């Protein structure tokens, strides 16, 4: 068996469990610990059944074992409120933190757009923006790498069943963080994000519309090529990332219509919004792992 980098997942909920199932298949990541706070958590029981070490004492229950188990990467799939604390504790043990919460204390990372930069910066904490951001920012970037985009707007429509209580309590955080990601990583001069929740049964597959306004008239051929190339990049880690229509052009408006189906590991297929987060988080960790395995990066406590 080739060498793998050992990892811990904090948060045994739907996201953490889906991430664990994906990580079990990784060539370069070996999930070792699952961290929760409730001894009766079904997520911890599932992890134990899969042969993973567990603690119900939160990150404090993990920290004493990190050095002996050589944990070099941690994923936080809990909530923004506790993330900073979690991150500080695992960084102090020399592990990189991949943040799947909306806390965004580290740089944003959207794998096909800026993962290489994030890894090159040796950031000890990287943030995965939002589900809507992961699904749409690659498309904004696909346009902005061809020509200047004065305005990027994304509309994410997700099934009611795939929106958890954390997102519901602070939906503004989704719109703000995604809009910021559209600007910082997507490359739009100004960004806007809209989220629509649809309760239809059977649940609808995540849909995303990306509108870009270009500064000059759009180079239709170059943008179309760039969009198709970017879709192929995302499909490497989210096979259900599908260009439904477009890019269509109307004056300086470029519109792209996407559908995102998940792999259906632990989360249902329609919840592409959640799947793209866990897949992007794992992809990010894998890139770090490759750097560590190649001896180009030694994560260390600051």
């Amino acid at each position, binding site marked *: 068996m080739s060498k793998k980098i050992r990892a811990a997942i904090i948060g045994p909920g739907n996201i953490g469990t889906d991430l664990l199932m994906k990580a079990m298949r990784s060539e370069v990541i070996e999930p070792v610990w699952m961290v929760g706070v409730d001894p009766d958590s079904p997520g911890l029981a599932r992890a134990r059944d899969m042969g993973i070490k567990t603690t119900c004492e939160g990150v404090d229950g993990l920290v004493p074992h990190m050095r002996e188990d050589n944990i070099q990467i941690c994923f936080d799939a809990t909530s923004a409120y506790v993330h900073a604390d979690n991150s500080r504790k695992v960084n102090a043990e020399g592990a990189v933190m991949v943040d799947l919460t909306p806390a965004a204390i580290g740089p944003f990372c959207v794998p096909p757009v800026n993962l290489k930069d994030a890894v090159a910066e040796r950031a000890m904490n990287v943030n995965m923006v939002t589900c809507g951001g992961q699904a749409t920012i690659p498309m904004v970037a696909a346009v902005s790498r061809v020509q200047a985009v004065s305005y990027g707007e994304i509309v994410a429509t997700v099934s009611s069943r795939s929106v958890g209580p954390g997102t519901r309590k602070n939906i503004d955080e989704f719109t703000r963080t995604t809009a910021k990601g559209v600007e910082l990583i997507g490359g739009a001069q100004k960004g806007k994000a*809209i989220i*629509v*929740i649809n309760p239809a049964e059977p649940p609808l597959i995540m849909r995303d519309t990306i509108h870009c306004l270009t500064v000059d008239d759009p180079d239709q051929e170059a943008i179309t090529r760039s969009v198709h190339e970017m879709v192929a990049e995302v499909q490497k880690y989210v096979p259900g990332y599908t260009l439904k229509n477009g890019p269509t052009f109307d004056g300086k408006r470029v519109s792209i219509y996407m559908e995102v189906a998940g792999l259906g590991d632990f989360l249902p297929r329609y919840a592409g919004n959640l799947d793209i987060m866990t897949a992007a988080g794992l992809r990010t960790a894998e890139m770090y792992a490759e750097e560590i395995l190649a001896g180009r990066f030694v994560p260390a406590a600051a």
Partner: protein
Amino acid sequence: MNLQGRKIQVHDMSLRDGMHPKQHQITVEQMVEIAVAMDEAGIPLIEVTHGDGLGGASVNYGFPAASDQEYLTAVCKAVKKTRVSALLLPGIGTVDHLKMAVDCGISTIRVATHCTEADVSEQHISMAAQISGLDTVGFLMMAHMIPAEELVVQLKLMESYGANCVYITDSAGYMLPDDVTSRIALARKELKPETELGFHGHHNLGMGIANSLAAVEAGATRIDGSLAGLGAGAGNTPLEVFLAVCDRMGVETGVDLFKAMDVAEDLIVPLMDHMVRVDRDSLTLGWAGVYSSFLLFAKRSAAKYGLSARDILVELGRRRTVGGQEDMIEDLAMDMARARDSA
């Protein structure tokens, strides 16, 4: 129906829902002129915002002639007795927009969600409820899509976050009077007695007046409408018509009927880009249960791809689309055009 002596408050939508048929192009000057005339007519409450609420300015819904801040500042300054409300849809607007609108001088904030998703409004309603003197309203859209029992659960959530008034909103103009009666009556029975109830209708099936009367009879004390019906789809409940009916039935509104008629005829009708009326497409909205502001988007996509707007709207209804999914319309039209071309 005996409504003699009932007191209600009417809420005019022309300068918010009316932004839809105007593609959000009403100017600040036009808004001020209309608001002042409504003030003189004694209309107690008017809504002023982008058609899709605060922060609605977008490619997806349309960029307005002026910003929400410009509209609200100008109108709030110009009116004397009339109070001004703003609409906010979580997922589009944020609490930052809410604070801005409060600073502009609104008296009322209305926080709107799809009828099954009230819990996304907790952040906004609870903040609004803490602002002293701010009338805080929860607004459940597309209320025809779930039965009364489920709707009341959602209304109670909004009440629990701090809304002092909650609305049953017939965004698609799909409801019939009995649908309104059953929903309002159950809400009146289950919610706190001090929580006000409101009804917002659309006239797509020509039921705006009848539904609003049913709402009043079942216990609603706030009724939305717009003068000359300027609103999405076939428009809102035509307010001057409703006021005349209220007058005949002895329902007290405090509005000067003839002045309201004059505002409708002299200021609103000349403003219309097209006659806001029940035509085959707006009728389809009501028949198929589709969000009223989809109308012009469907017409535009139909023209662009050589399709029938009615076919597009029927399909949007079949897919159980909800408010805000305007981006789905061109996407669907492209799918339909492709299916036609490959047939």
